[in-house]
């Protein structure tokens, strides 16, 4: 990538990444720990001739996204856990109406008001639907500031391709930490797919366009839901993942986002103690890279899942493995980060 290597905060990299990814408009409401995203976009969006508006609530934000996406724009909002909960009805409508958009969740501790410290407690909400009805978001999990910059463009492309909401699932560490990343100095307009379905005025078109998630006939709604589910099957072919030190590993550690950074350090420490550990990092959390995980796990002795939660992604790992390997879990909640040596000790413990 062309650009300047610079020390930059995750939330700011994400904001610039959205502009680079052709984001036309941002609507959002303040909430910690993602405030640097709207703060940066409040001046950067107008500078690159895009729309920025602070909404009166997350409920309103997601419905502004619904309107903007209906008009064919690349629309984005960012928030953190409680704010994302408020958006669930809107996200369900967006999925039902088959609209593309990008929602960023910089996760914090819950339930309830919880804390403002990092967490991965929203995995179920992000990946299993969250709102009402049969739908999923396409979920992407960055693990460093460079990916905070590069993922919005990828997420927008996926959203447009499948006409489905995309979500970037980050956490308070990734949002707040600074590290070097290569960021371009300018963001020229990019080419985007045509959206002949958009409700943006007929302008010579000989028929009306309607954006809608209301399908009152049960048989038609059944067909509509099947069509949406078929898109997820198609998207599963494009699932993404990453691996480190897996070839000779006896213990396969599965982790995403900031937990994967901790897990990788734990794997390295374990190897210093003579225990061969490797990392499997899902990048798309939905669709989940189940097949690649099964392939990588072949011949391993144990799987250890590390999360900043009570154990949510571990369920997808167990579904993928379907009993083929013992799957152990290690997690902390409330903003407590396991240290690399604690992960190392757990790796050694599960190998027995």
């Amino acid at each position, binding site marked *: 990538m062309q650009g300047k290597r610079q020390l930059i905060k995750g939330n700011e990299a994400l904001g610039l990444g959205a502009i680079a990814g052709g984001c036309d*408009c941002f*609507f959002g409401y303040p909430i910690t720990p993602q405030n640097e995203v709207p703060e940066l976009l409040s001046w950067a969006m107008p500078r690159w001739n895009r729309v920025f*508006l602070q909404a009166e609530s997350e409920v*309103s934000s997601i419905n502004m996204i619904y309107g*903007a996406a209906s008009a064919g724009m690349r629309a984005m909002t960012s928030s953190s856990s409680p704010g994302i909960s408020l958006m669930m009805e*809107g996200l369900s409508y967006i999925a039902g*109406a088959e609209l593309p958009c990008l929602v960023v969740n910089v996760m914090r501790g819950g339930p309830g008001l919880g804390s403002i410290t990092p967490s991965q407690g929203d995995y179920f909400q992000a990946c299993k639907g969250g709102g009402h009805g049969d739908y999923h978001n396409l979920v992407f999990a960055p693990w460093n500031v460079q990916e905070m910059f590069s993922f919005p463009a990828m997420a927008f492309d996926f959203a447009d391709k499948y006409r489905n909401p995309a979500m970037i699932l980050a956490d308070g560490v990734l949002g707040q930490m600074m590290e070097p990343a290569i960021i371009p100095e300018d963001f020229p307009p990019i080419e985007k797919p045509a959206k002949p379905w958009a409700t943006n*005025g007929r302008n010579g078109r000989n028929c009306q*366009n309607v954006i*809608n998630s209301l399908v009152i006939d049960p048989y038609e709604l059944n067909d509509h839901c099947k069509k949406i589910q078929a898109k997820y099957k198609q998207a599963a072919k494009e699932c993404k993942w990453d691996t480190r030190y897996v070839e000779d590993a006896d213990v396969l550690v599965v982790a995403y986002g900031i937990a994967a950074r901790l897990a990788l350090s734990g794997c390295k420490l374990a190897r210093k103690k003579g225990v061969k550990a490797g990392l499997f990092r899902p990048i798309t959390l939905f669709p989940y890279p189940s097949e690649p995980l099964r392939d990588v796990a072949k011949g391993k002795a144990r799987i250890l899942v590390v999360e900043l939660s009570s154990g949510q992604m571990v369920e997808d790992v167990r579904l993928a493995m379907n009993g083929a390997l013992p799957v152990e879990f290690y997690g902390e909640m409330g903003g407590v980060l396991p240290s690399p040596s604690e992960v190392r000790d757990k790796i050694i413990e599960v190998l027995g």
Partner: protein
Amino acid sequence: MITQATAQPVVEEGYECTFDRPESLKDKQFHYCPGCSHGIYHRLIAEMVDEFGLLDRTVGICPVGCSVFAYRYFEFDMIEASHGRAPAVATGVKRNRPDLFVFTYQGDGDLAAIGTAEIIHAAARGERMTVFFVNNGIFGMTGGQMAPTSLPGQKTTTSPAGRDVGRTGQPLKICELLSTLDGVAYLARVPLTSPKNINVARRYMRNAIRAQLDDVGFALVEALTACPVQWGMTPVKAVQYIDSTVVNMFPPGEIVNRLPAKKD
């Protein structure tokens, strides 16, 4: 027997057609109950879109309520919003595409109950949108429950003994509430009860559209409408009830008009 109107009116030789369906209105039978005012309001909107030549650049946002299917009746682009959020959806369209004419069509449950935050903030921001507000004082589609606009003493399925304002408060007067906001360009209220009043409605709707097209600010027209079925009245009684009773709580007229005076 109800028959569907023909697509092309047959005009015999020597006669001319003086009253027809507006181009922006589809040739489709409304699903509304007998005596319901939605059909009149729909037609007026279609007339206005035709009159201003906006068919090719209009985006309408319909609500959740009896008019949830409004998109079936118009020829221009439409978005079906979730309950109460039409002003936010309209904001998302208009901020990106200021060249479009964007309106919302919202009932009193949608606008004055669940969507109160959205309508107040859209008005406060002076969003260049036109709101066609339909106030019939009841939740029609869900079976006639009490709305924030139900009159004191009004019997509904959730106030079977009549609305007790000591427990539920007084009706919400949206136009008066919004009139305190500087972002508002135009607010007017009109009962859709007679040809005379419908002509007044046309004048108000024209102004509310001009407020957007001339970039003056937020505009809303509140129509006082009939719901004979859920009110338990005949259509004629329902219209009489609006003129005799509803107007006392919701006085008709222009509440705010910040449009520049016409130059002609």
